[in-house]
């Protein structure tokens, strides 16, 4: 088995957990803003990150 390590290294760096979270935040931007407007907290399920109202 021959692995192209250059491509593997690039792929590993591309899909890091924090980048996936950032994409998730962008995709759910409206949903998060809506939850905060309604005074609810928003849990980013997969990462257990809880976004609460700043006030």
């Amino acid at each position, binding site marked *: 088995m021959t692995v192209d390590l250059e491509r593997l290294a690039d792929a590993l760096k591309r899909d890091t957990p924090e980048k996936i979270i950032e994409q998730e935040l962008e995709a759910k931007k409206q949903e998060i803003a809506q939850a905060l407007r309604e005074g609810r907290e928003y849990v980013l399920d997969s990462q257990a990150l809880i976004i609460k*109202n700043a006030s």
Partner: protein
Amino acid sequence: MIALAASALLGLYVLVPVYLFERAAQSFIRLKRHQRTRIEEFGAGILVSGIPFVATCLLFWNRQNAWADYKIVVNGLYSERYFDAHTDAFWNSLKAVFHHQEWFFLWNYLFLITEIAIVVLCVRQFGRLNQYAIFKNTVGKFLLKRVSEWEPLLTPFVFPPSEKRRVEVDVMVIDGKLYRGTVQEHFLGKDGELSGLLLKDASRFQYSKLEADREAKKHKDLPEYWKKIPGSNLYVSFEKIVTLNLRYELPDDDLFERVREKLRQLGIRAKLTIERPRRTRSEE
């Protein structure tokens, strides 16, 4: 006699440097142990020992008087008749050659140590340096050809060391059990194949409990089904592994900062907390 001298020189200037280089590099990175042909091995050996050797030759190039001594010694070793006719000159030149070789040897090994230090630095800082195109297309390419494919997968090798990432893994084994933990160490067989993983802070997913709860219509969050395995380390043999799911996670504080920054960019003013999945208490 000349064969004996050539063997000694080959050992001192090729075999020992290659051995030292491989040993030093192995302490920081796993090198490929298979897929290398004899020609590739030979090429790598020449490159490793050749760089300090050529540097030393250049340093000693202008010491022309030494060449005459080398010539006498080589002739004396090659021909008995020459040796008999020039015995005194031979011994005088041999003494000069030994003296010259002491310095040559010293400088050669100093250059070798420098070469090893540069390579170790490149290996340790690979993730950081590989962000620069000039490194990526030269040293980076060369290093990636030599490194075991398990190194980028099971260590944070491709990430800058300052990020202090840890490798988190979910391992499915042949009996259907799922384990999770931080990769502490990985072990390779003699041909470079993975033989096992050592995990720390390992947990086991309780499928049977999940199924029982589902039948009883009890709803619990999935993290509730992770049960911590007592003891600090868990060894999983590669023969039993079916799949590996790998993640290269930042320390919580850094992740927190990244997410906070992203929220700021998105124009969301909010408080943020990270709640790690709860794990049930250790098995008795």
